[in-house]
């Protein structure tokens, strides 16, 4: 079942230097009980997409200029803010990259969760406390009853991120947006938190939008993947297809830059060049300055190819079949 559908979303930043089309016509969907990975180089618009869903873009300078975001069939973009506030934190929750600054330093973590519980579920203090302890043990916080009264600075980064997840999950949302939730954490904690997300997907049918840089994380946890480049979705596929038959030259480039994709002894490949500045994206395919398969046709908007079941790619010359194997070899 489709939980969230994004149709042709455009979020632009109107700065003094000019208009930045940071998110420029993207479409994808998230199903119930599915972890959707969103990958792409820094600055390609992953966070802006996530923030657009809950309309927490800093405004000004940012603004959603076009598109629809359907949640349960209701358009979040055109919805009155009061109605959206009821959805924020209750039906759609979000966790951020930086656990160090994601909690308010002046309140205990328990107080911060209690506020959310009383806002959305109207729980009184005792009920809220019981619920918080329950959530804390769910996310793997040891001695949950004691931690309720701790201040953020008394906790480690991993612990804070767990609190953030507990806060995001305490009202039983159906969609969780996780913007690089484990980047700031060490590897063991990272694995524990990702396992938790998988468990919640399996047990509660939680839909997750997992933004990450780490293709290893994608391979282990995600069901489907959206690859973004320069404010656009360039490839969408289920995770097996993406790793077995990457189709877009940019995706292939990303996979080649993975250490375990390279043959032992061979040099790690990187994509040449840099991400273009949003101020002057090339016309047509935005990847063409860096693409080895580029042709003159690529200065025109690339068409959408369906190369497999639920596998879509936006490119003039996508890799077909096992063709990319030669590129990697």
């Amino acid at each position, binding site marked *: 079942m489709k939980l969230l559908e994004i149709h042709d979303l455009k979020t632009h930043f109107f700065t003094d230097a000019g208009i930045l089309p940071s998110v420029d016509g993207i479409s994808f969907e998230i199903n119930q009980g599915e972890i959707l990975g969103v990958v792409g180089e820094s600055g390609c618009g992953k966070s802006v997409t996530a923030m657009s869903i*809950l309309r*927490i873009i*800093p405004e*000004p300078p940012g603004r959603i200029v076009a598109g629809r975001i359907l949640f349960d069939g209701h358009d979040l973009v055109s919805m009155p803010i009061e109605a959206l*506030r*009821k*959805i*924020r*934190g*209750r039906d759609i*929750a*979000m966790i*951020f*990259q*930086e656990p160090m*600054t*994601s*909690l*308010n*330093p*002046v309140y205990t973590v328990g107080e911060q969760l209690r*506020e*959310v519980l009383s*806002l*959305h579920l109207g729980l009184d203090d005792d009920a809220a406390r019981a619920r918080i302890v329950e959530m804390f043990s769910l996310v793997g916080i040891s001695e949950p009853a004691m931690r309720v009264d*701790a*201040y953020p*600075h*008394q906790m480690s980064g991993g612990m804070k991120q767990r609190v*953030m997840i507990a*806060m995001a999950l305490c009202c039983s949302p159906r969609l969780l947006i996780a913007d690089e939730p484990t980047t700031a954490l060490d590897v063991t904690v990272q694995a524990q938190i990702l396992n938790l997300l998988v468990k919640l997907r399996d047990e509660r049918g939680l839909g997750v939008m997992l933004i990450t840089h780490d293709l290893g994380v994608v391979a282990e946890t995600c069901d489907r993947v959206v690859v973004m480049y320069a404010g656009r979705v360039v490839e969408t596929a289920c995770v097996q297809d993406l790793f077995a038959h990457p189709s877009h030259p940019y995706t292939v480039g990303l996979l080649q830059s993975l250490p375990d994709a390279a043959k032992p002894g061979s040099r790690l490949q990187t994509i040449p060049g840099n991400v273009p500045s949003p101020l002057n994206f090339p016309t047509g395919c935005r990847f063409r300055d860096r693409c080895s398969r580029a042709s003159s046709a690529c200065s025109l908007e690339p068409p959408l190819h369906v190369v497999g079941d639920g596998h879509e790619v936006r490119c003039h010359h996508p890799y077909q079949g096992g063709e990319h194997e030669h590129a990697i070899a």
Partner: protein
Amino acid sequence: MSSARYSDLVWHQFKKYTLAYRSLQMLVALLLLAVFAPLLASDKPLLWRVSNGPWESPWFWSLFDRNVYEGTLDIVFNVMLVLGVPSFFLFFVGAVREPPVRTLRVLLVLFGILLLFTLFHHPSHAKISYPDLEKIMIAEGQEVTSVYPLLPFGFQSVDLSNVRSPISWAHPLGTDNAGRDVCTRMIYGTRISMTVGLFSVALYMVIGTILGALAGYYGGRVDALILRLIEVMLSIPSLFLILAMAAFVEKRSIFHVMLIIAAVLWTTPARLVRGEFMRLRSMEFVVAAVASGFGKRHIMFREMLPNALGPVLVTATFGVASSILIESTVSFLGLGDITVPSWGQILNTGRSTGMWTLILAPGIAIFITVSLLNLVGEGLRDAMDPKLRQ
């Protein structure tokens, strides 16, 4: 020790700065002096008995008497005094350890009731001069027993037979050109200075914080508007502004002076809070709170404001000092409230009469108070600086 609240942390650190901590203690002592002023100086006898008549305490009843203490300010302090003695025993002498919230609430209600009571309380014998009465009665052959405070003078009681008297045991700082005891007036002046400081700062901190918060939170046009307002206020020299405003008010009371001070000083917290809010606006916990569905009011006042208050508190401390200085300046220039014995008023009298005690005493008092406040402010600033905390 296990308490980890930020305020506790700052307090713990503050106590390590000996000079600042001692200064704070001295300021508290000054505040107590203001509250307990009538115990030190009053021309109403604490105890009074004529012949074998009943014991009376004109002093106690005069505390709530608007014919004796004309200013609301003094009455408020007197109510604090009356409640202060029992609460002192409750808090310090009694074995109360935990903050007694209920007791505090009861005291607050009592405070309100007493204050209301004073509004309707008009005893008839208020203007009696008890020292004179005593002399007359003794001359008539009656036996009078009386106990006065240390300084048996009222801050308003004029004694034209005793003007410009030098320093003596009876008058530790002499008397002024109207025969009023200078020491008494200095003690009551503490009340004025403390109130001017605390009240105007509270007033302009609220104004400045709200405007700064709005500017920093909304940005854009709201910010531009408030910023222009601040710039206009800043471009006019404040003394000029004060003089102009003072000239507009015909019958100036001390509350007008406080309003004028607030009107001049609000820009400092406004700019500060604006900056803090702009910084906090993009902090992840604020964005997270928005994403959790909280409304604007919650975001501004529950999430952001407590995080912006630290620096505001520091400027508030310095602000108390500037307010006291401004009040003194305004009074010194003859634009203040002439009915109150503020330090600035005493200074003004000193200037017009050329009496050195009237210049030196308030001068030193102002200097010490302002210095103490600045020391406390600096200590607070350092205590809040995480770089200086070990």
